[in-house]
């Protein structure tokens, strides 16, 4: 059996940041990543990030993954990396079971940081299961990681940041975006992204939804229609779009299977994307020694996921007695960074969601 001080489940932006910050205080950590490489979904992010310099603003996502990996090099004697390692479960005696390179492995950590991320939500409409209907993130993976186009003509459902950014990336790959639609009466994403796709000639239709997809074995078209102020479809406003791909970009929900299995107290918070764990200000859940960071703690953006990772990392390390001299200062810094990332109208929703699951005192 392998022993370690902190096991980190997930090698994406939150998990890598947690590993770096925990190791920088002196803790021994193990990263468990189910994919064959680290970086999580940063790998497919070709756009430049917002935020401030501390969160790598103006740097492209895939470059941020490289920066984090380089930073980990500094602590390589403290960080063990396991790729192709899927965590299967946590036993009552604190043992994690893992499928590593198709073999069964056991690990006994003292603390666990769960940074498993989120998965794409789905939408119900007739024929929504046809091949050619993909998550927007899936299309981003297909294009930006593997260099393959999803098709020729795309309908994007959802005008949040992911919908807008992936629409732009589709155009960069030489794919036509016929329209971006959103059921809400206003665009959900940043206007700077919306303006970019609009300038390129893509219509963004708000108060519109998809009525049905058409096709036998795969998508051959889509019918959209308009919604009234009570979000009810208006008969007679149907438009047919000649598309072979429909991208669904209607948000993400936290990947919380492990937290449920571990017995963490969970709560449904729509502002955070679904069920999330109750946590204290140190990102520790109701199960002593299990911390959370990134989208699994509440769906936001990679910038805040990285800061949460740093915060969870120092908190887990400090709970083992590391970094007493620097802990309070670092904690203040990360908390301030999160506050500033969550200022503004989009952040207000997150702050409201977090207020419903964050308890003041640390769990006993």
């Amino acid at each position, binding site marked *: 059996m392998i022993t370690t001080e902190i096991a980190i489940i997930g090698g994406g932006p939150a998990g890598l940041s947690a590993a770096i910050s925990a190791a920088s205080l002196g803790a021994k950590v193990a990263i468990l990543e*189910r*994919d064959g490489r680290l970086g999580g979904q940063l790998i497919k992010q070709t756009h430049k990030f917002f935020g401030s310099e501390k969160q790598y603003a103006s740097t492209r996502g895939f470059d941020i993954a490289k920066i984090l990996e380089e930073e980990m090099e500094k602590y390589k004697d403290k960080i063990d990396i396991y790729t192709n390692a899927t965590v299967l479960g946590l036993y009552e005696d604190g043992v994690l079971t893992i499928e590593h390179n198709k073999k069964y492995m056991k690990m006994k950590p003292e603390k666990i940081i769960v940074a498993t991320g989120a998965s794409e939500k789905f939408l119900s409409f007739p024929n929504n299961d*046809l091949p050619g209907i*993909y998550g927007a*993130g*899936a299309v981003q993976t*297909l294009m930006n990681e*593997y260099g393959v186009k999803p098709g020729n003509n795309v309908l994007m459902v959802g005008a949040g940041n992911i919908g807008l950014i992936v629409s732009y990336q589709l155009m*960069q790959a030489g794919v036509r975006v016929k329209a971006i639609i959103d059921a809400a009466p206003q665009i959900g994403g940043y206007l700077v992204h919306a303006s970019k796709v609009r300038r390129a000639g893509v219509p963004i239709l708000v108060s519109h939804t998809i009525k049905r997809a058409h096709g036998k074995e795969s998508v051959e078209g889509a019918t959209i229609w308009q919604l009234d102020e009570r979000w009810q479809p208006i008969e007679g406003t149907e438009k047919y779009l000649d598309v072979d791909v429909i991208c669904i970009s209607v948000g993400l929900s936290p990947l919380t299977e492990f937290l449920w299995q571990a017995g963490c107290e969970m709560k449904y918070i729509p502002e955070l994307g679904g069920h999330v764990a109750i946590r204290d200000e140190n990102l520790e859940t109701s199960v002593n020694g299990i911390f959370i960071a990134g989208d699994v703690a509440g769906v936001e953006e990679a910038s805040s996921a990285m800061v949460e990772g740093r915060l969870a990392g120092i908190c887990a390390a400090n709970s083992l007695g590391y970094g007493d001299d620097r802990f309070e200062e670092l904690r203040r810094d990360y908390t301030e960074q999160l506050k500033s990332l969550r200022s503004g109208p989009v952040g207000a929703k997150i702050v409201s969601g977090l207020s419903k699951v964050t308890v003041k005192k640390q769990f006993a």
Partner: protein
Amino acid sequence: MRIEEHPILSFENEKRKKIKFIFDGKEYEGLEGDTIASALHAAGVKVLGHHYANNRPRGFYCAIGNCSSCLMTVDGEPNVRICVEELKEGMVVETQKGKGELK
């Protein structure tokens, strides 16, 4: 349908090693670094199977190993998530009938 030109990324398709594999008895070609799903999609294959109960066509949805919409039989092993399975030379990829059987 490979991306040949891109303002930010360079895929260098012509420099990548070609990888031959079999899909439902026919020979296909992917590139080094492909998953089975990306190689099939690049070759124009979107339908990866049919639902075991209602026979409706199935493609991938998430492409990162979450949703299980892309399960196929690979080298005799059923229920492989082909969106995260690296393509290897000589692989035999089959459309899965039913729920798949361990042999």
